[in-house]
């Protein structure tokens, strides 16, 4: 029986640093969401009017609009991006490598365009929230698709798939037993990239007054309004909460990506 003495000189790999950040980001975002959900309770049970409420409660109320819209658009954008990458992979298997390359290059090019400018345009022209969510999702999708496809193509070349084929596993089983379980986390990591992007795009549009309708409330809209009125007390809470939420969303995306990366 073999023994393996002689431990290597190098120290074991430390926990990826992104992990702790991701965890704290998730905690901060959860706390923000809870606080925003509990904000109406701060108004003694009666209906709360945003303009005469105290600035912190008003900012938390705005968070309901911002966060729920961001969540909706991020889920849509993540799904669109992942679908885009999977479509490219499928085209590569069924049609040819050329088709796959064209689809991915389109995503990579579009990820470099200033697509966030489409959001205020859509906010001004369309007016409906679900259409705005769709457009916001589309602005985040190319970046997600490029990342997801990179992960997908790394996995498709993995040696353990060859090992599975050497064990005469049919392609269907290779897909079910090896490909899908190993694909879940990288794709999820690519999908979470959409969250900070859509939150930033929506806040930018609302700041210009071309984002979410005023009835929903949004941090960006409140910041813009306070800046126009020159009211520092009304300006600070939504601006700080928005910055915090953006940091948390970025930290989550980083953390999930760091968890996927192999040492």
């Amino acid at each position, binding site marked *: 029986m073999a023994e*393996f003495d*002689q431990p*290597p000189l190098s120290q074991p790999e430390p926990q990826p640093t992104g992990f702790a950040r991701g965890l704290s980001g998730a905690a901060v975002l959860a706390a923000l969401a809870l606080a925003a959900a509990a904000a109406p309770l701060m108004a003694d049970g009666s209906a709360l009017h945003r303009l005469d409420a105290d600035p912190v409660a008003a900012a938390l109320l705005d968070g309901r609009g911002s966060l729920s819209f961001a969540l909706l658009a991020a889920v849509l954008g993540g799904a669109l991006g992942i679908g885009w990458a999977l479509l490219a992979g499928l085209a590569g298997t069924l049609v040819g490598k050329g088709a796959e390359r064209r689809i991915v290059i389109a995503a990579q090019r579009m990820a470099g365009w200033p697509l966030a400018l489409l959001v205020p345009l859509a906010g001004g022209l369309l007016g409906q929230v679900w259409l705005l969510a769709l457009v916001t999702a589309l602005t985040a999708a190319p970046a997600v698709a490029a990342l997801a496809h990179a992960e997908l193509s790394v996995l498709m070349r993995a040696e353990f798939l060859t*090992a599975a084929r*050497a*064990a*005469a596993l049919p392609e269907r089983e290779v897909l079910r*037993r090896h490909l899908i*379980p190993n694909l879940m986390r990288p794709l999820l990591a690519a999908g979470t990239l959409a969250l900070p992007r859509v939150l930033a795009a929506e806040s930018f549009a609302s700041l210009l007054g071309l984002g979410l309708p005023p009835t929903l409330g949004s941090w960006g809209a409140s910041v813009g309004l306070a800046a126009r009125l020159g009211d520092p007390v009304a300006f600070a809470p939504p601006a700080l909460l928005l910055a915090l939420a953006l940091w948390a969303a970025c930290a989550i995306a980083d953390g999930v990506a760091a968890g996927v990366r192999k040492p």
Partner: protein
Amino acid sequence: MNHIAAKPAPVETEALTLMLGDRVLLDRASLRVERGQVLAVTGGAGSGKTALLGALAGRPPAGVDVAGGVRIDGHLLIAQGGRLAPRRPLALQVAEVVGHHLGLDLRGALRRMADGLDRMGVPPAARRFDLPPEQLPDSLRWACLFAMAAAVGPAVLLVDAPAAGLDPTVRLRLLHRLADWARADGVALILAGRPEDGVAGPADHVLALRRGRLLPPIPLRAGPLEPLEPPGTARLHARGVGMSYPLAPGPRGEARSLAVLHGIDLDLRTGETLVLLGETGSAKATLARSLLCLPPPTAGTVVWMGRDLMAAATPPAAGEEPNHGGLRRARRDLQPLFPDPAASFDPAMTVGTQLALVLENLRPDIAADRRDHRIDEALEEAGLRPEAALRWPAALTAAEAAHAGLARAILSEPRVLVADEPAAGLSAEERERFLDTLMAVRDRRRLSLILATERYGEGLRDAHRGIVMLAGRVVESADAGTLRTAPLHPYSRAMLAASLGGRPALEGDAPSAFGQPAGCPLRRRCPLAREFCAQAVPELEEVASGHHVACHYWDTPAEE
């Protein structure tokens, strides 16, 4: 006072002790290296070679405590991998070091560098050092670093893992050049590296760093563990196996492809061990995979026990029933060993689950409740404890992963193992242990074995027959004894020389797959090359019974 006292040696240590935490890396070593002497220090991964060089240079790595006395003259340390900035032009980086040591300006430093490059045998046409290191081949980077040392001219040169990762023939050529320079200029040269890196070849003295001591190295096993049994009849036949990869279409839309394997014929008999020898770009790994049809080759046929493997492995046309039975039967008999065993395990499943999956798929005749027992047996035979089945692939060391890969390969009770550099990532002792296990398994099960490797001596040691490959072609094939003692092709001779630590008679680097010269692929490096070599690719001809050579001038001495 004695005025003609002998000068002290440039490197002397007195009871040098190195500690990493509470682990002793080096225990009271006394070392003395004279001028013009070449010392090689070998040792496995983590044995403390880098720490020793760092301590000699006065800069031990963080966390290493040094005790004892070190006396060293003006020295230069070339660190592992050369430590070059990837994006700055190489000439600038090197000239800065030379200029710093000699107090020269850039122009003067570059002129000194040119002299150094001459001494390292880099032809002026190959000096593309205005490129950043990441765009240069490794061999040129190392030649440039060695030339830097020659330009600086220190009293002591310390080199950590020199030319590691290069092909053996290229590595030994560079190391011999460096050693020649050190001897001629009276420089004390210390080379540290793993035993398999060939640093021992050009050295005057070799010390192995083992369990905290500097000891003479243990010679490696030269012959087979047990006498080899004569092989039986041929079962695996490959005829005209070729592989080409599609490239992007040309300017007029014509399809283009890159052929990496050119019509290989091969027969493997039962119980025979056939070793495929070749360096980077020889397509030995491609051939190994083509024999397994993973993926199937683009030309030729592979027949296992009368059944055409390629027909079974190609996906059936629409409407046809896939021939799973035939392929499964062949897969059960032919099992691969992968060059990176850790990557050949799915990180999302334990080792045992994956082995069970293999067994379920390839041996449906074994009842489900007997599978665990079979897996335990295979793991023990491969040199692991049965508990290894419960571990995740990420928790295995490289050596354990290699043994687990062997366990997976023998699980289905195959008849042939096709191993592509199965111990590539392992070092010295681990490597020997793994190869011994592999050979013991082979002998016990009477397996046929195809072993692809770049280590000439080690590969032929346990083999019946060898095939030397170069740029996708067979250049020499003979029984192992002939190849070990008297190969005829210049490339085989160079590989033999490199494996013995000698000076290979080949110049320059192997050409890239995209820039193969016309005619013989070796002609730009070959000492026997003449004009005719550019005109025709040499065919394999039989020069003795069972001995084939593909060279126009194998029987002609080199031209002066």
